[in-house]
């Protein structure tokens, strides 16, 4: 009996691990296929047996395409054709299913029909059909796919042709199309539109390209100009000894050189290869950068811009100026004679007795002023001041033993040294006694006070420098502060002080009197002004080129000015040649602290914090035919640097001998002789 509906097993049915699992899977699939088969079954009314099974008709479900699982919660599974409910069959237990599987030999044929709720038993024909479908064979049983081939045409050979038409004439004559094509080609060649087959290529032959080299008649003007402006590429550098395959041992890199060579950039290497040594020519390997170097040369030939450069092929000695022999410019100091020790701390200022030059006065950071014998280097007198000494200056009058001292605490003292000629000492004592310090005006800024053997001036500000006029009656002082009234001019004979300036023109660094005329040089940081004291006018403003002037000195005639700056520069101002320096030098490596010019010899000295004193031969010519001369002749070294990088603080020349005296920050005074 054919099944009329497909069925799938219940979900709650367990699958036991046995040999029948695979056929069961086939049945599931087969069950799906069985649904199509009944469509082609012959109609039922023709089969009497089918009609007699009335119990089968009773179980037919009429719910249509509604999924059967919607009736899981109901007691029935559908309705029959009469509208009555079809009861759900009783569920089999697990034990009952197991027993049925073991005992029933047809259990593997049975497929559960969910639509009717009963098991359907498959026939042998149905099983065979399912097997064919599963193995890819034809579902129709007994179908033979290899029927014998029946040809359309007969294989029998006939003596008569199938088509009896005769051959056309065009098969026996040349083609008209080809003839037309060839005619068109011939016509194109005749008209010159196309070329015939090219002749065989001639072998390239060399000939004498420069046979007519000597005859330049056929060379055009542009060709001549191209020849003229052509710049050939520079040649490749030729190899050196280091490039040899068997170089001397010293050309081979040691470990340090090899490491440096490997770490350096390729462009920064002096050699572009590593020197190697081989003991036989057959062991030399191929250079692996050979083609690369040839390629780089080709790139240079057509990509590198070219330029014509003028090169100096001069000996370095030709660039140096010719100086006279230093031995011809003697005498100048060359040797450190001795040190004068006694000060503790910096020696800030030194001054030498005029005209005789036997005594040296020095002021230091320790607040003492010492008088030394230059010939023996012995300290013969010490004055104790109440503050640190900043400046000392001997009076330029030789008959007096006066010393001007500026020290901190806003004081300027005029001392009688008490050394030297006894007659001069007595004259100086009488001069100090006659100073009219009592007749001062009320409200004066500077207070003059007389003490035993010295005068005391109370200044409104700290004093940096004190300097004498050449006549010995006037002296000037400069304050450290940057104010308008930093410069004071004092008169000794009248015990009077006055301020010549009312406005501030800059931070005044140094002042000095003209040696012969009533003029005053005032140096600010970057300018020097010359004032006429008689007419109270500004005579000249000098542009120095220094950034910070630290010291100033004049020559004996007052026509030249020497300036030293903290920016290591030295300026020589020739006052007869405009307001710009005649010579600017930069021979020191630290700040210039002092400049001194000799009164008798043409010697100039500059001292600096770099521990050296430069001695120059500086000849001054008063006529305009000859130019001034300046030659460095000696660099003297002395003193030791202090932790704050100060070394030489002051210098001065001996008035009659070519001796240089320098004051150091280490507390010593050095004397240089020749």
């Amino acid at each position, binding site marked *: 009996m054919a099944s009329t509906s497909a069925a799938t097993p219940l979900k709650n049915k367990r699958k036991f691990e046995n040999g029948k699992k695979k056929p069961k899977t086939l049945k599931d699939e087969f069950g799906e296929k069985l649904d199509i088969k009944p469509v082609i079954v012959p109609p039922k009314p023709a089969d009497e047996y089918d009609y007699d099974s009335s119990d089968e008709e009773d179980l037919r479900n009429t719910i249509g395409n509604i999924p059967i699982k919607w009736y899981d919660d109901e007691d029935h599974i559908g309705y029959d054709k009469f509208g009555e409910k079809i009861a759900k069959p009783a569920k089999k237990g697990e034990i009952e299913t197991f027993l049925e599987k073991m005992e029933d030999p047809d259990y593997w044929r049975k497929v559960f029909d969910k639509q009717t709720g009963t098991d359907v038993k498959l026939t042998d024909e149905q099983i065979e059909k399912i097997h064919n479908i599963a193995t890819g064979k034809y579902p129709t049983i007994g179908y033979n796919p290899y029927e014998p081939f029946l040809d359309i045409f007969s294989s029998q050979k006939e003596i008569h042709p199938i088509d009896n038409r005769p051959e056309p004439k065009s098969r026996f004559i040349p083609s008209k199309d080809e003839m037309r094509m060839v005619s068109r080609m011939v016509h194109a060649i005749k008209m010159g539109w196309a070329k015939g087959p090219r002749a065989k290529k001639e072998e390239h032959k060399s000939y004498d390209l420069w046979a007519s080299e000597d005859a330049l008649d056929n060379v055009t003007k542009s060709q001549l100009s191209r020849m003229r402006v052509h710049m050939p590429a520079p040649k490749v550098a030729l190899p050196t*000894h280091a490039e040899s395959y068997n170089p*001397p041992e*010293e*050309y081979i890199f040691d470990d340090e050189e090899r490491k440096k060579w490997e770490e350096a950039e390729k462009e920064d290497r002096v050699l572009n290869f590593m020197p190697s040594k081989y003991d036989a020519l057959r062991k030399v390997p191929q250079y692996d950068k050979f083609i690369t170097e040839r*390629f780089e040369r080709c790139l240079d030939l*057509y990509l590198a811009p070219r330029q014509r450069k003028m090169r100096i092929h001069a000996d370095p000695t030709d660039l140096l100026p010719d100086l006279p022999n230093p031995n011809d410019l003697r005498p100048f100091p060359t040797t450190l004679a001795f040190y004068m020790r006694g000060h503790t701390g910096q020696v800030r200022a030194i001054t030498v007795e005029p005209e005789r030059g036997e005594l040296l006065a020095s002021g230091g950071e320790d607040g003492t002023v010492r008088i030394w014998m230059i010939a023996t280097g012995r300290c013969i007198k010490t004055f104790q001041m109440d503050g640190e000494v900043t400046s000392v200056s001997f009076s330029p009058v030789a008959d007096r033993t006066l010393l001007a001292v500026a020290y901190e605490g806003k004081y300027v003292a005029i001392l009688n040294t008490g050394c030297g000629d006894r007659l001069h000492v007595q004259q100086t004592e009488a001069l100090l006694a006659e100073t009219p310090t009592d007749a001062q005006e009320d409200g004066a800024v500077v207070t003059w006070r007389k003490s035993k053997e010295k005068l005391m001036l109370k200044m409104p500000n700290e004093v940096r420098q004190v300097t004498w006029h050449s006549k010995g009656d006037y002296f000037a002082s400069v304050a450290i502060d940057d104010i308008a009234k930093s410069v004071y001019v004092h008169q000794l004979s009248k015990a009077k002080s006055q301020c010549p300036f009312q406005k501030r023109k800059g931070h005044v660094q140094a002042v000095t009197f003209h040696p012969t005329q009533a003029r005053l040089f005032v140096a600010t940081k970057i300018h020097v002004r010359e004032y006429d004291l008689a007419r109270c006018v500004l005579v000249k403003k000098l542009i120095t080129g220094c950034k910070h002037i630290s010291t100033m000195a004049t020559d004996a005639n007052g026509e030249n000015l020497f300036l030293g700056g903290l920016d290591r520069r030295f300026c020589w101002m020739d006052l007869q040649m405009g307001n710009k320096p005649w010579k600017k030098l930069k021979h020191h490596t630290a700040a210039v602290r002092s400049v001194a010019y000799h009164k008798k010899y043409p010697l100039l000295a500059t001292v600096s914090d770099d521990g050296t004193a430069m001695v120059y031969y500086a000849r001054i010519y008063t006529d305009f035919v000859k130019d001034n001369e300046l030659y460095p002749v000696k660099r003297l070294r002395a003193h030791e640097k202090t932790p704050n990088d100060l070394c030489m603080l002051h210098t001065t020349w001996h008035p009659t001998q070519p001796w240089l005296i320098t004051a150091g920050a280490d507390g010593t005074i050095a004397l240089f002789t020749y």
Partner: protein
Amino acid sequence: MKDRFKQKYTAGAAVAYMSRKQALKKLQLTLKDFRRLCIIKGIYPHEPAHKKQANKGSTANKVFYYRKDINFLAHEPIINKFRDYKVFLRKLNHLKAKKEEDKLKKLYENKPVYSLDTIVKERFPTFGSALRDMDDALSLCFTFAMLPHTRVLKEGMIDSCRKLTAEFMHYVIESQSLRNTFISIKGIYYQAEVHGEKITWVVPHERGLPHVTDVDFTVLVTFVEFYIAMLGFVNFKLYQDIGLFYPPQIGQVVKTDEMETEEYKEKVYSLAKPLAKRKDVEQAEDDEPLDLLGEDSDALAQKVREAKSIKTMFKGCVFYLNRECPKEALTFIIRNGGGIVGWEGGPTDLKADSKNISHHVVDRPMDKLEVNRLYVQPQWVFDCLNARRKLPTERYMPGVALPPHFSPFTSEKAGDYIPFERLEELRSMGKDVSDLEAAIPKTMDELPMRRKEVKPEKPKGIHIAVGQMHKKSKEKFHETVEKGQELKMRELMISKKHQRVYHSMKTTFKRNRNDALKLKKKAKLAKATEA
């Protein structure tokens, strides 16, 4: 009203120079074709003196060409060949895609080619200017002669390089103009004097060149194309001047079909046999300038003597080369010196056991030695040429540590470091080395040392000692110090204009001195270690 102000960048450097982009636009070429054109025509960029003006106010880093050069390129007929080649490539691709074999073959037969004869003439109007550019041409052709064939390097090109370089070497041998040679780790350098011009080239060692990846071979191929054309003409001219056949021949005049055989070509290009001379050219005898030989100090007489000694250096000697020696290099030098060369399987039919052999060049240990011949290593041949005479062979025997091999191209100056063996070489060549020897900088232990005085310990307190007379120092140290001080004073007064130049020269001098001192120190250390 007339325009008073001239517009900017309409005169001067702004119009005399042209950037590469403008050049490409004017010539209507691609960058590759422009580069090929520049290589062939020898056009190079120029550095303008007024770069900002040439760049029309901008300071960007640009490459500038002369406008006249670009106009010169615009009139070159070879540009049309480049454009025809572009059309040819387009047709080629078209026919390849359509698989039309017969049309493809026809198109290949009509491939556009160009001739470089006129370009060689334009670039080198005189023969001397061509000889001046032979360094790069020879070095590159010798490199290509050693390369294998690839897709970029065509077979014909490499064969042409081999042929032309061998022909040039033949000319140098026949004219005996090889002057210097040097074995370096990069290759073998040669220097020849041809028509008064010194030509120096480098040949790689006879081993396979390695494969390189960062080299654009199309650039090299363009250069080699030009150099092949140039070398052909130069070789023809050189051969004609000394009466040789071109292409070269050996022995008697042979037929044309026999010249094409491989065996004959191998004989010609092995450099071992002399070339045939034309009969119509009279023999130019070497008349010696007798009046010049007397003056020893003249440079010209020195040169003539050197050339004569090179020509007759190996006269009457028969050399047999072992198979591991570089045959081409040794043959080149030996035949330049007038000797006879042979090797196993060579064209001169010289057997290893022949009694005529006077020198046997070996480069590996030998177990059997003949008593009537001299055994030398290959460096002996090179050093003989550089020394202009036959050196003693004791230091060059097989198994002996060779003396150092020096570069003949180094021009020794006073102040340079010169190795001791090099000084000996120069002295034996007859040069005055006393100045060079005296100027070698001295190391610290060679300078005269100042004797240190041991000062006695000063006792504390006041101490009175006997005074000593001051003695003026008469040592050389004092003079050196004084001279140095004088130099320092002169340096202080140098003018600001010359200061930079002077210090630059001093820096160079100091660096050279330091290099020389370092080498000398290492030489002393090596000698001390060896002892």
